[in-house]
């Protein structure tokens, strides 16, 4: 399977480039739109949660950004993956190619935008907020890598199952909305009542967010339990996603 994907790597690359080009071509502001969106969200959330609801945290915009950008990547990927097989039905019926390329390309498209946003916002906010970067910030890169793999697993699962049950698309939309509020992105995990924290931390999105905040914001190593949750979910989703995708993909050409 990996060998097949390597053979089709230029197809994956071209799919991602196509989506990036089409997203920005013909718009005046171009890729600036990808930066404006987080700026607006951070402004509004800072107003609502820092100044109205008084979340007591210094350098709140920086704290928010660390959780929000990766979340946007995950949520956009999960949402887009539900439609990716159906949207490419005409290709699937007419030519052989490893079907995994479709969810992978759709995740990489969101990931490219995450990397772009991080490259602009992280240095900017570190400078503005004056929060010193600790050496633990180096761990941000491998954590992002795990997040990418985890999301690829989720995308495999969702894209495959949606071909048989179109409800999954709606379910995912609602699920993401709910998941966002039980993930400590706009509030720190320490504000969650102590006896509930253990359940919140089981949520994969929360584990990733807490780990990002540890290495970038607090300058500490992630707790072993959080790291174990991150690794466990990544491995589980990769395996489950792959297995489910394999089971469904042979009949894609007949189902879609």
């Amino acid at each position, binding site marked *: 399977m990996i060998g097949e994907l390597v053979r089709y790597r*230029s197809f994956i690359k071209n799919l991602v480039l196509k989506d990036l080009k089409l997203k920005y071509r013909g718009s005046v502001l171009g890729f600036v739109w990808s930066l404006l969106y987080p700026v607006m969200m951070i402004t509004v959330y800072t107003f609502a949660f820092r100044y109205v609801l008084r979340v007591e945290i210094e350098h709140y915009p920086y704290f928010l950004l660390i959780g929000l950008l990766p979340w946007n990547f995950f949520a956009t990927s999960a949402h887009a993956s539900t439609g990716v097989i159906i949207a490419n039905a005409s*290709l*699937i019926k007419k030519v052989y190619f490893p079907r995994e390329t479709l969810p992978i390309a759709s995740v990489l498209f969101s990931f490219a935008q995450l990397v772009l946003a991080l490259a602009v916002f992280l240095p900017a906010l570190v400078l503005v907020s004056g929060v010193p970067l600790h050496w633990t910030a180096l761990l941000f890169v491998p954590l992002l890598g795990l997040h990418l793999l985890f999301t690829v697993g989720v995308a495999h699962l969702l894209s495959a199952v949606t071909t048989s049950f179109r409800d999954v698309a709606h379910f995912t939309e609602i699920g993401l909305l709910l998941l966002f509020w039980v993930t400590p992105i706009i509030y720190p995990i320490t504000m969650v009542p102590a006896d509930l924290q253990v359940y919140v931390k089981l949520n994969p999105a929360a584990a990733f967010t807490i780990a990002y905040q540890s290495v970038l914001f607090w300058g500490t190593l992630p707790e072993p339990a959080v790291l174990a949750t991150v690794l466990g979910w990544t491995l589980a989703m990769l395996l489950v996603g792959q297995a489910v995708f394999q089971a469904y993909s042979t009949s894609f050409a007949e189902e879609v």
Partner: protein
Amino acid sequence: MEWAVELRGVSKRFLVRRNPAHSLKIRAIGLFHARYRERREELWAVRDVDLAIRPGECLGLIGPNGSGKSTLLRLMAGIFPPTGGTVTTRGRVAAIIELGLGFHPDLTGRENIYLSTSLYSLSSRDTDAIYEDIVRFAELEEFIDLPIKNYSAGMSARLGFSIAAHLEPDVMLVDEVLAVGDERFQQKCIERMQESRRRGTTIVLVSHATGLVERLADRACLLLRGRLEADGEPAKVVARYREALGIGPPPG
């Protein structure tokens, strides 16, 4: 003998779904109301086909509508798994079932060439090597950097055929796509196919145009209701096909 394509006892069953239960709601209602229950009917599109194609052979696949020609082609391409039997192919296989596959109207001709060829597992470097030839053959030198939504239908079809013609796979599976462009361009396409044949490409050609099969193929197969009814010299198989359809030999 190393076959280019080998089918052994190949069958393909489709489940035609009445009331396909794509949503959980319908599935739940189906538990109580038989009328809404998903029913699956079997449809055998291909039954028990044995077919071995030599490297370099050009095989014409003929048969009336619904006889299973396209399904058989897709089985060879690996688009469907067979329900029974085995399909083995050697080398790089390219199925040309539709021209301009993967084209996006907002991308330029150049960008679409790279996208479309990568769909057939060509790397960017592979495509660099054939890029000029593709553009020249399609006669689109002046328009290649325009979005293809500005192309005429004929121009898109020419670009699509030109890409297909330059993929140079070991096995080329072609489904009714030769009828593009004006007569002069069609002639060019047929010549291009003959050139590929001379270079040793194995070709499987699905066509209604029996004249074309007689002209290009060195072997023909007739499919009727999913079964292989005749296999042999094109002229004889075409005659058998006409007999099955209940029409006489072509006039003249």
